[in-house]
């Protein structure tokens, strides 16, 4: 039983390491080859766990070999369009200039109901509003609305807006995040000044987000939002 526990821990570490090396992706966003490798890794890891006669090294070597192949293929795919096309396929334009390309739909075996469902997932309920729709390799549908159907932007309305800035968590659970402060080009002193102004101690802060213009949101541990 102890050996089973040790084997499980080893394989857990190996599989986590393998998936980590391959990169962060959700199952739905995986390319076909990535999905195959992920499925194979889980299957291979299960064999030495189920059969204690199997040496664990066999499983580890097989998992590492799959990771090596996956990395090599992904690097080749980055360098060469043909490899990328071969391994992952290519995007297909389903709606072009407002017209549905039925031949393209047949080539990807997509029914009208599938198309309508995918459009609804993009908050498009009327196919007539669509100028272009592209079925991506991941299976998602990218939609571009006709210009008459696009919502007006600040640029269209000629409204001046403050430039975008990313608020970062400066304090979480009473702890100052120094990396955020250096990214915001400020220091602890400036942060403590804000806290003094609000009459809040660092230890009382549940979350404080700050942007580079000094705008902040402060949530105290008692739930009060400042």
């Amino acid at each position: 039983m102890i050996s089973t526990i040790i084997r499980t821990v080893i394989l857990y570490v190996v599989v986590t390491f393998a998936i980590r090396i391959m990169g962060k992706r959700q199952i739905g966003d995986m390319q076909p080859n990535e999905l195959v490798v992920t499925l194979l890794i889980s299957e291979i890891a299960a064999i030495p766990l189920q059969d204690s006669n199997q040496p664990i090294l066999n499983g580890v070597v097989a998992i590492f070999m799959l990771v090596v192949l996956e990395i090599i293929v992904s690097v080749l795919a980055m360098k060469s369009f043909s490899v990328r096309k071969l391994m992952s396929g290519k995007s297909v334009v389903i709606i072009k200039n407002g017209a549905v390309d039925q031949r393209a739909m047949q080539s990807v075996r997509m029914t009208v109901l599938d198309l309508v469902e995918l459009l609804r997932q993009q908050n498009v309920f009327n196919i007539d509003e669509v100028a272009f729709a592209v079925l991506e390799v991941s299976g998602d549908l990218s939609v571009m609305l006709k210009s008459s159907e696009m919502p007006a932007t600040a640029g269209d309305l000629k409204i001046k807006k403050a430039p975008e800035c990313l608020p970062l968590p400066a304090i979480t659970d009473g702890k100052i995040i120094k990396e955020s402060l250096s990214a915001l080009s400020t220091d602890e002193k400036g942060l403590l000044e804000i806290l003094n102004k609000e009459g809040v101690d660092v230890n009382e802060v549940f979350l404080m987000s700050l942007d580079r213009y000094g705008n902040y949101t402060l949530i105290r541990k008692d739930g009060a939002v400042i």
Partner: protein
Amino acid sequence: MKRLIPAGILLLFIFCTAFFGKITVKKQCDNTLVSLESLKNDYISENIKSAEKGAELIIKEWKASEVRIAPLVNRELIEAVDGSLKGIAYGIKNESRGNVLYNYISAEIALQQIADEQSLKLASFF
């Protein structure tokens, strides 16, 4: 190209494991097969005392080999060789010629199977 570094390290680990694993397993199997052949010759030439000693020695040697090859070889095959070697020792003590020869063949087949698993023979791929 930086992305290929982890792949290179893993590949190195894989090749080292495969290469040194093959050498280690082949060496242990070959040594045992040679000792087994000499034991069989002793037994056939009615040199029973030498065969008895030889059988005990092979069992001891195999126990030491087990430790070295256990991370690389299926446990069932290791146990099969172990069982056959003990069967040979039992057969020699109890003067059961059939038992000795049967277990000799079983041990030989299991040892060859262990060596084949690490080899590049076509049969081992499929």
